[in-house]
């Protein structure tokens, strides 16, 4: 006889049951014996059920897997909520750091140059918005302690613009015509606004698509035409000094061989100028304009455009 036969025979013994008559008599006897110590009425009611549900819920959620899942839900939910709550925060708010971290995380997880450029534009727009709010708050309730925030916002805005310019250099949207004087080579290829990046193999005319009319400075931030002025790496001495410096350069832009309307680099320069003039709404509009150009443009990231470079109107699909 093998084990399966034995198990089968054992399972047959499940049919064993107490005598029905005995079962009924025993039940009555036991219930009558406990009657003296039992509750007068059956237990129930709202309080009892609430207490029961609470206990059951606690019993379920005390399981390790349920605890881990709950923590994950709260962390993710908390993250989403805090990001949503941080959306309108400005420097000095407790959630502002969460906003910045979120921006950096988005950038880190984006791999397409065009999308990165759009993100940088969006972040620059955020800085402009925040700057507007900070100035508004200062006007409404002058405390005199906003200079630091203004300075930091200004620096961050410039950094975002710098990043956009750098990315636009890598994206060939359309080959342009105007080739101004070759900008000076900068030690830092990232700073070359209109020049050829050190690691680029593309012909100059294509690489300089967005560099037209922009004189490269060591910092690469100033609009073309004038001598390189205040470096962008170090924050400007004060926000007030910038407009005058920029103003001196502004005519130079106009003097350059006129860029085509809709040239992102030009619009970017205009956005910078408007920012320095504290016209933040207009700055944001310009940034959105550039974003639309990138969105609607049919371009390729530099390096893939060898085939596209042959055609004057490169309409290569994205």
């Amino acid at each position, binding site marked *: 006889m093998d084990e399966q036969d034995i198990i089968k025979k054992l399972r047959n013994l499940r049919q064993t049951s*107490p*005598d029905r008559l005995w079962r009924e008599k025993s039940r009555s006897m036991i219930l009558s014996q*406990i009657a003296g110590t039992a509750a007068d009425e*059956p237990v129930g009611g709202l309080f009892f059920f609430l207490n029961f549900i609470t206990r059951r819920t606690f019993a379920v959620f005390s399981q390790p897997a349920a605890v881990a899942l709950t923590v994950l839900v709260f962390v993710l939910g908390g993250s989403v909520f805090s990001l949503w709550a941080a959306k309108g925060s400005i420097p000095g708010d407790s959630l502002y750091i969460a906003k910045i971290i979120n921006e950096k995380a988005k950038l880190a997880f984006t791999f397409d140059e065009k999308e990165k450029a759009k993100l940088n534009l969006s972040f620059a727009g955020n800085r402009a918005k925040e700057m507007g709010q900070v100035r508004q708050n200062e006007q409404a309730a002058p405390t005199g302690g906003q200079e630091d925030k203004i300075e930091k916002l200004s620096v961050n805005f410039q950094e975002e613009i710098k990043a956009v310019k750098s990315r636009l250099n890598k994206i060939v949207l359309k080959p342009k015509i105007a080739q101004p004087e070759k900008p000076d080579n900068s030690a830092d290829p990232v700073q070359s606004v209109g020049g050829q990046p050190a690691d680029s193999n593309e012909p100059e005319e294509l690489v300089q698509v967005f560099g037209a009319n922009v004189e490269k400075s060591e910092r690469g931030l100033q609009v073309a035409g004038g001598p390189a002025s205040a470096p962008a790496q170090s924050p400007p001495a004060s926000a007030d000094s910038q407009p005058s410096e920029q103003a001196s350069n502004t005519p130079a832009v106009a003097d350059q061989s006129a860029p085509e309307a809709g040239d992102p680099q030009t619009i970017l320069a205009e956005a910078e100028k408007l920012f320095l003039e504290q016209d933040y709404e207009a700055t944001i509009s310009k940034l959105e304009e550039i974003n639309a150009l990138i969105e609607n443009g049919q371009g390729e990231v530099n390096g893939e455009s060898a085939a596209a470079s042959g055609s004057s109107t490169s309409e290569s699909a994205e």
Partner: protein
Amino acid sequence: MPKKNIFSESLIFQKLKYKDKQAFGELYDHYVDDIYRFIFFRVNSKEDAEDLTSAVFLKTWNYFLENFHSEYNSLKPLIFKIARNAVIDHYRQARVKNNQPLEQIRPEELLDEQQDLDRKIDEGFQSDQIVKKISLLKEEFREILILKYINDFSVKEISAIIDKPPGTVRVQIFRALKALKEIMPN
């Protein structure tokens, strides 16, 4: 008797803490057959099994009278532990040996009284044979085979009742089956 789900068992458990007589009746209806089977194949006497089954339910009621804040979260391990202890006490009091003669058990007593008599007698003899062999096993083997194959408990449930790790329970089941196989006729 349809199996109750975990939720309704938990509800009965909570009500018993508040000495609900109706809940106790439900407890009795749900567990009386299982408890009876568990005790019957340990003591091999119908009368003793009936007495002990009634005692187990009264002891369970007393447990709830004395322990509002019970360490247990469910009914099954609690009531079967009480049943297990009742059997051990019975052995001590009656000084019954493991190989108690089974003449007092009639084969048809092993099966449900609803079945027709011929089938009862035939299956009863087959069951009688295995019951006799089970009674020859040592107590811990007998107990574990009853819990596993007659009461149909999982390894986890058995582990909670006899206070042994699930791994040990699995090994015991394997050894018990092997021991029973050795004494069963071919």
